[in-house]
């Protein structure tokens, strides 16, 4: 892999250059919290921080997205909507880079989802390093670093930035806008040193090898844990909303008051919401919150793994961070591990 060195003041030049052809989104501070927003200069970027509350997936899979535009009447007309701008996602953390890799699989398999894929094609991903907080556990699910799946990866090494080239497209953009030079071994080793330091910063960790988690989850279907946390969960769906690998949606129609034209759109949906698995006739296949929590956790550690390979939890800790009643994915997983090891289910 190719590493370049970008001098300190090169960053704002680079961002200014990108702004000519792209919308640029990156982490900024809002009311004290990191969030992804559109930026107009490098100054606004928060390049070393803990994860944002809301994920950058919203730029690839928007919370509300038009699928079709139609006209009603005698001869209804319909056209496909695929509104996508050229965009740069600047400052994407390793966990979210892994999450985007997973979403890419999901939307490309079987019948490809043109809306997502069009957007993805027009998106440049620039990664950065981050600081874990007490909810982060990417180290436990092998997503603490990203080896690829980005166009560029920028790491602050004090005197300037170490830039890892991920794709030709990324390299071309870098070379077009700023002067860089080949990074020295010493500079490159700063990233390795940072990883060592980061590794020691985690307070949350899962007490088992990631590859054993599908088995642990498949054996814990009848664990009392589900009913216990089902009792305190509000069924608010915040955990679905903030998760970078939750991608379930609802499809709805909006029609203008004159009833002549409108659009079909999709919106994020969440498997923790009560109506998610309800069918005509009123039967609900996951009636209790415990059942719905079990479904969500299993999607991360077992079900989607069977379908796509690889864990679907990237350890960002957002669901635990967002939960109003402190249901913590690491604690729950550790409890299931313990039940399996001791063979006892209290």
């Amino acid at each position, binding site marked *: 892999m190719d590493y370049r060195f970008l001098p300190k003041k090169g960053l704002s030049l680079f961002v200014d250059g990108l702004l000519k052809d792209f919308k640029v989104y990156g982490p900024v501070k809002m009311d004290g919290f990191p969030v992804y927003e559109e930026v107009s200069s490098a100054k606004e970027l928060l390049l070393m921080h803990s994860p944002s509350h809301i994920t950058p997936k919203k730029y690839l899979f928007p919370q509300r997205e038009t*699928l079709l535009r139609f006209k009603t009447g005698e001869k209804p007309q319909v056209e496909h909507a695929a509104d996508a701008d050229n965009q740069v996602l600047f400052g994407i953390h390793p966990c979210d880079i892994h999450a985007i890799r997973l979403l890419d699989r999901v939307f490309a398999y079987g019948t*490809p989802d043109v809306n997502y894929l069009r957007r993805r094609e027009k998106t440049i991903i620039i990664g950065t390093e981050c600081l874990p907080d007490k909810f982060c556990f990417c180290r436990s699910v092998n997503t603490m670093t990203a080896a690829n799946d980005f166009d560029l990866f920028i790491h602050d090494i004090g005197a300037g930035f170490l830039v890892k080239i991920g794709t030709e497209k990324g390299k071309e953009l870098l070379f077009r806008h700023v002067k860089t030079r080949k990074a020295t071994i010493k500079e490159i080793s700063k990233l390795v040193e940072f990883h060592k330091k980061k590794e020691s910063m985690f307070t949350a960790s899962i007490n088992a090898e990631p590859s054993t988690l599908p088995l642990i989850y498949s054996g814990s279907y009848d664990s009392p844990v589900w009913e216990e946390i089902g009792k305190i969960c509000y069924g608010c769906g915040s955990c679905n909303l903030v998760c970078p690998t939750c991608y379930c949606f609802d499809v709805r129609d909006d029609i203008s008051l004159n009833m002549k034209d409108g659009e079909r759109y999709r919106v994020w949906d969440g498997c923790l919401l009560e109506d998610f698995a309800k069918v005509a006739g009123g039967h609900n296949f996951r009636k209790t919150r415990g059942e719905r929590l079990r479904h969500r956790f299993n999607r991360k550690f077992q079900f989607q793994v069977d379908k796509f390979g690889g864990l679907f939890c990237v350890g960002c800790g957002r669901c635990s961070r967002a939960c109003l009643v402190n249901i913590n994915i690491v604690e729950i997983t550790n409890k299931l591990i313990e039940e399996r090891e001791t063979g006892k289910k209290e």
Partner: protein
Amino acid sequence: MESPYLLRQARIERITRLTEKERLFRLVFEDDKTLGHVPGQFIMLSIFGAGEAPISVSSPPDTRNEFEICVRVVGSLTNVLHTLLKGSTVGIRGPYGKGFPVKEIENKDILLIAGGIGLVPMRSLIKTILLKRGAYGRITLLYGVKSPEDILFKDELDEWSKVPDFDLRITVDKPHPLWKGHTGVVTRYLPELKIDAERTAAVIVGPPVMYKYVIMGLGEKRIAGHEIFLSLERRMKCGIGKCGHCQINSVYICQEGPVFRLSDIRRLREAI
């Protein structure tokens, strides 16, 4: 790349009122291509402004550009559909999913068990079988409804009952003054059926509550799990394995189903 959400326009050619809540619609595509479905598959039916819903194809495979659906009024889309007149257009995408194993069950006795609106996809299968009557053995259809007014396709049931070796039993949940036939749930009539388990394939389609009891009944008849097929209903928003609504564990009903072999899903938690 084309959007999977784009639709083919179809015109409503005929509307037949079957019951208070169910109507049969004959649809003809504006283009001259066939739907190209197999029995048991479904389409996404859409009316702009009212939304989309998965609906089974009720007619057998057809070389023409036409097909039939039978829809029960339950909510927003289905209510609007029932107000449409002959000549109106609706949007169709699909067909989706895996259907009944029509070929595999050839040369077997066929035991069909339908509950309520479950007869809708079953009709596509029955008509397909009857078009090749000689290829199948005895046919038994157990059909359960809430009350006599709910019986769908009355004339066709009458016709089928006259086909050689076609044993039809309709049962109504509770006794009814106008009903002289069988009463009680469908499972009640399983014990008295003469079934050669070695050469029988069973197909079940009905409301969620029905499956457990029918499966127990078929077990007592010693029909093997891999000779039993059932169609599962879940909420669906996309039909293409993305939206997550129809997911049971790692199985997407719209992709791997809606028709399943019992032996494949018996151990699938939350399926039945």
